[in-house]
């Protein structure tokens, strides 16, 4: 577009004056030539008429028709002459030559006359014929009147001229003029284009270079030609491009260096985090096994009869083990969340169930602390993962109970202003959190005012888990707190319309716990201590327990006639054996799908996935005895309900 614009302008600038001058000159010359032609035509016509008059003088005098006819015919041979008539003094047409259709002679006078017929485009010239005077200077020549008589009128010559040829010549001249003008214009245009190219091309070249530089192609350079009219401009452009390029390169280098530094810092930080995670994982795993065993032993110990003092000790022991297990559970949760191993399963469900569970689970501990736990009933359904939401609320309520010395804790919900969400709130009348701690409380192991790290005050993982889980679910978590006046956490959860909620089947009825005494449980565990603890616990629950330290031992047990109702296997066994494979082989050996669960001290995401793929419940060590018992009961109940499936 710009290119066309420049070219058009150049062409216009060159052609406009030339056109004007050409038209003006052509006009002036044509007009003058037309005038000359017309003048020449009329002069020729008049002169021919006069010649004819002179020539026919004697013919008219002598009344010589033949002579006059010859003259007339001769005149007719002249170009443009259409017709000739010679009229005598009396007005009689003596001779006529040429095309017919001659007008009757008009009134004849001694004056030369000329009449133009615009229709036929002819000129009729009237030429009087008088006798030519010969000066005699004679004494005899005095007529009767005494005065000199005018020369007698002999007749008239009438010639009709056609202007066709004149018009034709004028037309030819006009065409020629136009052709010349056009040729001039073409030539001028050609010259303008040729000469303009010398200017336009450099301009276009420069503008292309600028365009390229504008696009960021800073390496673009104009080729400086010796005869270029825009040489200075192009050199300046090149200089500019060079400066820009070097400036950009420098900048890029600096950015690259800064980025490199940043990356190094980031890598260092990541390495540090990784080291921390590894340390935590390793530590938790190494802690799990003994803690697991300890839990089993303490549970078994508690079942034995004791005196009051011992019982109190055992109670304390249980609390310690409980705290240890909570810590490990928390760490496990954190690592699972970090590993993104937690699968979110959103579904609509009634919030009331969740609230009930929380009330039932926590009412006792509240009462123990002398607090009032109030749960406001609700009928709303929400779209969330019930297990994860349960964990969030559990953590929040536990936290609230923990940091409240007196008063009450309130769990409630209300529909948010937009009618799309429900706001679940946990109020407490506790100590509150100072504003400077508001952000930090969500960090791992952060506890306000627990520098001595009192176990009873928890481990500082709760809010971190809450925050991470809420993020995972996409629920917004907010906290309002005033020091000394209590804290309020609120969680924004999508609301489910009541109609849609009803379509979802209600959870299965709570299973009835049968008396499972005599249930045969096969325990596969390579760690002797853990195995011992587990076996004694299971036996205390009245189960018949088969014990194996590996696959071969387990298979031997089956061969020996043991028919297990449930298999409980450690995942990591000796000699690179694992629980999943062991269970598979045992099932194959037994010929039916024996209900089984896995236990492991690893918090590895790969293991969780593998267990899930094998449809095996994975229990993380330390396994709480209550949890284990409920799982075994459920597995056994499933078998009873569906019957044994063949593999």
């Amino acid at each position: 577009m710009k290119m066309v614009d420049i070219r058009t302008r150049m062409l216009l600038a060159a052609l406009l004056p030339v056109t004007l001058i050409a038209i003006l000159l052509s006009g002036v010359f044509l007009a003058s030539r037309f005038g000359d032609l017309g003048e020449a035509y009329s002069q020729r016509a008049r002169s021919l008429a006069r010649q004819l008059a002179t020539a026919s003088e004697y013919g008219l005098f002598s009344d010589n028709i033949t002579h006059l006819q010859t003259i007339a015919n001769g005149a007719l041979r002249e170009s443009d002459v259409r017709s000739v008539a010679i009229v005598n003094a009396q007005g009689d047409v003596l001779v006529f030559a040429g095309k017919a259709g001659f007008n009757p002679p008009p009134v004849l006078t001694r004056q030369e006359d000329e009449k133009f017929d615009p229709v036929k485009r002819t000129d009729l010239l009237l030429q009087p014929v008088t006798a030519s005077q010969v000066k005699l200077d004679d004494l005899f020549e005095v007529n009767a009147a005494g005065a000199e008589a005018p020369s007698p009128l002999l007749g008239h010559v009438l010639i009709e001229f056609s202007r066709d040829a004149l018009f034709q010549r004028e037309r030819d001249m006009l065409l020629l003029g136009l052709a010349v003008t056009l040729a001039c214009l073409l030539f001028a245009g050609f010259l303008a284009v040729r000469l303009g190219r010398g200017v336009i091309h450099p301009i276009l070249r420069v503008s292309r270079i600028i365009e390229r530089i504008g696009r960021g192609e800073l390496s673009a350079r104009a080729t400086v030609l010796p005869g270029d009219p825009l040489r200075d401009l192009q050199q300046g452009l090149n200089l500019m491009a060079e400066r820009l390029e070097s400036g950009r390169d420098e900048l890029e280098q600096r950015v690259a260096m800064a980025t490199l530094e940043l990356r190094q810092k980031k890598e260092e930080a990541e390495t540090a985090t990784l080291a921390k995670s590894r340390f935590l994982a390793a530590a938790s795993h190494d802690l799990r096994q003994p803690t697991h065993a300890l839990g089993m032993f303490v549970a078994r110990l508690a079942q034995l009869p004791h005196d009051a003092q011992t019982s109190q000790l055992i109670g304390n022991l249980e609390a310690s083990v409980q705290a240890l297990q909570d810590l490990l559970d928390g760490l496990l949760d954190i690592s699972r969340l970090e590993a993104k191993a937690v699968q979110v399963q959103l579904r609509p469900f009634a919030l009331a169930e969740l609230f009930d569970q929380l009330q039932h689970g926590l009412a006792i501990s509240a009462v123990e602390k002398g607090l009032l736990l109030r749960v406001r009933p609700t009928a709303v359904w929400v779209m969330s993962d019930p297990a994860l939401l349960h964990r969030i609320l559990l953590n929040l309520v536990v936290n609230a109970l923990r940091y409240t010395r007196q008063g009450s804790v309130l769990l409630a919900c209300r529909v948010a202003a937009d009618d799309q969400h429900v706001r679940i709130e946990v109020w407490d009348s506790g100590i509150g959190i100072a504003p400077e701690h508001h952000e930090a409380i969500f960090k791992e192991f952060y506890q306000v005012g627990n520098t001595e790290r009192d176990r009873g005050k928890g481990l500082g993982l709760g809010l971190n888990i809450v925050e991470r889980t809420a993020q995972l679910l996409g629920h917004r978590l907010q906290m309002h707190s005033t020091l000394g006046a209590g804290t309020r956490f609120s969680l924004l959860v999508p609301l489910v319309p009541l109609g849609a909620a009803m379509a979802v089947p209600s959870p299965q009825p709570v299973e009835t716990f049968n008396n499972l005494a005599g249930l045969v449980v096969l325990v596969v565990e390579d760690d002797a201590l853990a195995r011992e603890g587990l076996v004694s616990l299971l036996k205390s629950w009245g189960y018949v327990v088969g014990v194996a330290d590996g696959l071969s031992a387990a298979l031997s047990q089956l061969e020996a006639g043991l028919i297990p109702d449930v298999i409980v296997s450690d995942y990591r066994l000796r000699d690179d054996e694992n629980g999943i494979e062991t269970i598979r082989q045992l099932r194959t050996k037994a010929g039916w799908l024996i209900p089984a669960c896995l236990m492991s001290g690893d918090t590895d995401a790969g293991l969780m996935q593998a267990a899930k793929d094998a449809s095996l419940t994975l229990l993380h060590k330390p396994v709480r005895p209550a949890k284990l018992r409920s799982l075994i009961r459920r597995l056994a109940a499933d078998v009873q309900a569906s019957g044994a499936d063949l593999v």
Partner: protein
Amino acid sequence: MRLRFLLFSLWLAVFAGACAHAAVAVVIVSSERSPAYVEAAEALVSELERGGLSRYDMLQLTALEWAAAGPLAPKLFIALGTEAASALAKSELRAPVLSTLLPRSSFERVLRKSGRKSSSQFSALYLDQPLSRQLELIRLALPTARRVGVLWGPESQAQAPALKTLAQASGLDLIEATVGHDELLFSSLKSVLEDADLLLAVADPQLYNSSSIQNILLASFRAKVPLVAFSPAYVRAGALLALHVTPTQIGLQAATIARGVLLGKALSANPIYSLDFSVTVNEHVARSLGLTLDADALRARLRSREGLL
């Protein structure tokens, strides 16, 4: 001697101025001051002077000056040209009038208009030549020509019978045609030219004038009929030859007559023709007609025939 002549001249001049109008003998009235009239007047005056008449005895006027002039009492009035003649004819004069340098037809017209008759009181010396002299010249110049063509016009028709007689006497045939008033000249001219060996032009302004002469000459030339005219101008225009009198010749003859009148002789009652004459030949025309003519020789022979020598 020189002084005396000067004193005499001075006296003459004073005397002439004092009695210029009172005591002139001859009054010369010219129609105009064109060369022919001046020439004729000059010849007349010189000749009279040579005869002893003083220049102061003569008064020269033009016709216009004459009309404005006071009463004069000369012994003779000489009119040069038709206009002067008619002006004098209209005046009551006690002296005789000699009209000259005018053709016969003009003089007759002047007579008719003024109601005068040719007399010793009002006579003329004709400019044109007598028909007999013209016929004689024809015979001299064109001896083979027998048939003489003549065109008569309104003013010249009166001479037709005289010419007829003269022609018969000379043994020439006349081919005649008459052109009436407002009649086309050509048909008559054509009929004459068809039969004639030559065309004799008789002075008649109705026929021969500056407008018609070209075509007449052309027609006669085409018909190979030579034109014998009455004026040298015709010869210059293409006539073969002309018999005429020059203004000087007329002036000289008029002077002779005037001298006679001054001596007491009366004017001839009948107008007279000039005694002397000239012949002019167009040699180009003569050559193209295959003729060889010598004007001087012709004049000499004609004069000798008339016994003038």
